[in-house]
């Protein structure tokens, strides 16, 4: 609606979405080639989900002696989900012009069996908590999917109503992992703490020869405030840890298989996996350390938490690129080394400004990097990324040629000329992110809070921007150039022509529409890239705790109740055009259509019995 419906289309005209006399067969809309009537989609093209879930845990604890205890625990989570997809007659897309019906049943179950023997005791200033144990994890997924090839009779969503045979598939996925582990937590004088763990896993997702792997970790902390004799209103802890983590991958991924291909006149055929498996695949390995401090001063009026980490992913299970001429697009390896490091700081304050006003304020700042450290096989790049580069680089080979002074080169057809050289224009992830939260507690009953969030750095394609230029619905596409286009006048783009080795101002003609399409939609690798930096007022909330005296009047044994009005996404400052650059909030996400930010205002009522 936003991109393709012209401003002269009133969507409300299409509320009655069936053509008169052709109900259930033909919908009405302003376009019959590309897009569907939104009312028709909302009411007729439906997806439904019905899920039954059972979750249970049973455990038995036995106190063997004063220090020893044993626990046996069994948990089960079983769920059955039925999914139905219905497409009405006349649907554009999804191969469903004669409607369609798809039914999926999924039965997923997961069982965990754990057994521990625990030991806890103190020996003077020493304390020890340890356990040894094992666990079995078993997961199973049974999937059955059937779909029609069009419907004989519209609105009858049943597999027996299929035109032609019903297409059915089913699959079973099972996974088992056995683990043994041991852990010891030691403390001395309530000031020194040390933790040691070791774990061994055996996984069914790895080949038999390499399916067992072990990984330890050490962590410790020291309560410096105790040692340095700081006043009790202060707390200072320093902590550090070193860990090795090993992991497997999803079931059945390490081998190559044949997948179903076409069925022609009853001849079923298969096709081989384009990713070559590795029968000697090993588990991934990540090793690293983390250091941090937690501090609080002046009785909690000021808190400081700092964390720094550095992890190295070696032995990554990676799908390495191959030349397609080798027969495979990728092949599975253990290799490529990635260095990940980051830093986070949280500064907080709890102030009693006056008898009636308390302020809690927290500033959060973080930085994360993932860099390529080594390439398997000694190649000089991994998908265009070189050693030392960030893994989230933005690269394109679809930009426009420019003269040395930066002007656009225009070809004989009046349009920019494509530049197919692979360019790195920046990185997609942020340089750093931060947030600031404040909560004022007033008169012991009101809470007023606001949360600001922001990120600095990172670039990506603005998909909505591109689509609106393509359709001509972009606000910037309105102006004298467009009026000239409507009058049938040509457009001479700003740029240069390369004539006999010289750059001369452009004189070649085209149309404004053609130029905009080339510039923003087709050769958009560089032109449609924008900075993702933003500052957002993510949430403002005003709340009121109902006084106990009022609650008691209801005689319902209410222990507490509060009411608040919450507004989220209230304000955003960003150079990113037309969409929300905030990833995870409907913002940029690769090549999916992005959405403008939406403001929400709502209220919460919380009652405790």
């Amino acid at each position, binding site marked *: 609606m936003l991109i393709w419906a012209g401003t002269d289309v009133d969507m409300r005209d299409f509320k009655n979405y069936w053509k008169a006399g052709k109900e259930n067969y033909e919908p009405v809309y302003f376009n019959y080639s590309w897009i569907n009537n939104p009312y028709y989609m909302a009411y007729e093209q439906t997806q439904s989900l019905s899920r039954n879930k059972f979750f249970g845990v049973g455990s038995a604890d036995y106190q063997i002696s004063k220090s020893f205890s044993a626990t046996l625990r069994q948990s089960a989570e079983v769920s059955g989900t039925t999914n139905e997809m219905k497409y009405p007659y006349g649907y554009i897309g999804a191969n469903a012009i004669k409607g369609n019906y798809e039914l999926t049943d999924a039965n997923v179950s997961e069982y965990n069996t754990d057994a521990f023997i625990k030991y806890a005791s103190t020996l003077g200033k020493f304390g020890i908590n340890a356990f040894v144990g094992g666990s079995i994890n078993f997961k199973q997924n049974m999937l059955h999917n059937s779909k029609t090839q069009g419907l004989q009779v519209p609105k009858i969503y049943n597999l027996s109503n299929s035109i032609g045979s019903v297409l059915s598939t089913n699959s079973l996925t099972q996974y088992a992992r056995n683990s043994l582990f041991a852990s010891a937590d030691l403390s001395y004088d309530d000031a020194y703490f040390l933790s040691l763990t070791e774990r061994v896993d055996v996984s069914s997702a790895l080949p038999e020869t390499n399916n067992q792997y072990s990984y330890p970790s050490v962590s410790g902390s020291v309560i410096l405030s105790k040692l340095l004799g700081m006043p009790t209103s202060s707390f200072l802890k320093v902590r550090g840890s070193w860990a090795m983590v090993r992991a497997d991958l999803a079931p059945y991924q390490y081998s190559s298989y044949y997948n179903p291909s076409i069925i022609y006149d009853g*001849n079923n055929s298969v096709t081989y996996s384009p990713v070559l498996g590795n029968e000697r695949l090993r588990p991934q390995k990540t090793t690293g350390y983390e250091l941090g401090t937690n501090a609080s001063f002046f009785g909690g009026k000021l808190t400081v938490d700092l964390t720094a980490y550095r992890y190295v992913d070696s032995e990554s299970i990676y799908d390495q690129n191959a*030349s397609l001429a080798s027969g495979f697009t990728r092949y599975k390896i253990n290799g490529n080394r990635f260095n990940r490091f980051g830093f986070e700081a949280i500064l907080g304050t709890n102030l009693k400004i006056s008898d009636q006003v308390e302020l809690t304020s927290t500033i959060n700042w973080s930085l994360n990097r993932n860099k390529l450290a080594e390439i398997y096989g000694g190649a000089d790049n991994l998908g265009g990324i070189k050693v030392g580069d960030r893994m989230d680089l933005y690269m394109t080979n679809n930009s426009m040629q420019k003269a040395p002074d930066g002007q656009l080169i225009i070809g*004989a057809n009046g349009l920019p000329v494509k530049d197919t050289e692979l360019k790195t224009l920046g990185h997609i992830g942020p340089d750093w992110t931060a947030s600031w939260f404040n909560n004022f507690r007033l008169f012991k009953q009101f809470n007023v809070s606001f949360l600001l969030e922001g990120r600095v750095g990172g670039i990506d394609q603005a998909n909505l921007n591109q689509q609106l230029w393509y359709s001509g619905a972009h606000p910037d596409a309105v102006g004298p150039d467009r009026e000239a286009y409507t009058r049938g006048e040509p457009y001479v783009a700003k740029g240069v022509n390369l004539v006999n080795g010289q750059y001369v101002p452009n004189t070649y003609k085209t149309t404004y529409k053609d130029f905009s399409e080339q510039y923003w939609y087709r050769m958009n690798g560089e032109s449609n890239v924008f900075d993702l930096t933003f500052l957002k007022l993510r949430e403002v909330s005003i709340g009121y705790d109902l006084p106990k005296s009022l609650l008691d009047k209801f005689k319902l044994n209410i222990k507490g109740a509060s009411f608040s009005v919450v507004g989220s996404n209230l304000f955003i400052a960003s150079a990113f055009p037309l969409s929300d650059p905030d990833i995870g909030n409907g913002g940029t996400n690769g090549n999916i259509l992005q959405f403008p930010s939406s403001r929400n205002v709502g209220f919460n009522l919380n009652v405790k019995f």
Partner: protein
Amino acid sequence: MTKKIIYVMVSVIVMLTACKQEKYNKDPNRPTEVGAQAILPNVIFNSFKNRYPWQPGLAVRQATATSDRQAYQTYEWANGDWAEFNLLRDVTKMMESAKGAKEYLAIGKILRAHNFFFLTRMYGSVPYSDALKGQQSNNYQPKYDSQKDIMLGILNELEEANQLLIKPEAAITGDILYNGDLKKWRKLANSYKLRVLLMLSKKESDQDLQIAKRFNDIISNPGLYPIFERDEDEAKISYRDYENIRYPLYMDFNVRNKRFIGKTLADLLKKLEDPRLFYYATPFLNAASQGKTDFDAYEGIDASKSLTAATEDASSGNYSRVNSHNYTELPIGKPSLGFSYAELMLAIAEASERGWVQANADVFYELAVQSSFKFYDVEGSAATYLTRNPLSSVKENALNQIYEQRYILFNAQSDFESFFHYHRTNYPVIVNGQGQATSTVPFRLLYPTDEQRVNAGNYKDALKAQGFNADNILMKPWLYQ
């Protein structure tokens, strides 16, 4: 107390050994080994179907796209994707799974020839002798072979297939092309050699290739090298109204709404009064009101115009659309002519005109026309057509007529064959104007972007060996020099 600890420990250990990881190692839903017949329908269908149903038409002016810029028409060609190597992966697995059964091996060789023949003509040098060895020898960066070596390799493989099929021993299944008739596969192998040799016509003087002699050897020895004898022998794939195997342009709204018949093709068909025009296109909207009927009711749009001008033509109602009923409303439509009897007849007619073989070019020309007319259900008109358009006795004119028939035959069929023949024969005349971004027709697609990153050394060597100073669509490959 110790007893209790022991009980707990034992139960833990028993539980942990109860699960056998190996039982869950392999995917129970998909096989790791299959028989060759399980892969055969897939590789046959995907090799001979219309893989490029509308793209070549735009490149050689058989159709004109309006409204949206189409890179195939504007010649803003960029990197190709080498998708045929995915097919060749399955062909390789099919040949491995045959476990020596020579019938399947022969078919595999023919399919390899077909796919490599396309790859090398579309891109230039490509990996051939070192290709497809990722699984066997972990060669993920194969070297490229020259076009000449690939052509020789293809001709060898086709001869090997011919040899393997002299005395077939076992029946095959999964053959959706010839239904197990191995004689027809043998005819395909030898006919395909003629297809390859014709494409090498610019290399007549090359002593390694000896094109004329090879062509003549095949024609003169039908016992050793059987070729197509009738329509039923051709490589033709019929579509079915079933998932994934429907006519490729079925429900294609782009073709339905934005494709018009090209002026070059329309003018040619009108000049010859060729009834195949009525299958390819529809009368223009205003024809009836202008009193135009029959061949006059058809007008093609000139793709060298600017897109704006072409789009204006489209909305004027005075130009003929590509027949949307025949191409986008029939789930089955016409079969795909992977390699038709008509094409072979035209090849022999041309070889005769070029003096490679002693044959009556007239006869083969007529057989080609009759076969194509039959395909489009207008065989009744063939006789009058041939009387009106007989093959000229002047060599230049005759060759031109053969090129015309080939151009008409390949409309919406046979993928990029008309494009490759354009560069070989310079027929039809293609003029570039405001509608194009280049002043000449490109020769090739660029190598896939991945090649520059993953196989950089061999990629650069190949460019150098071909005399290309860059990977450019306007670089002329050896084949056309």
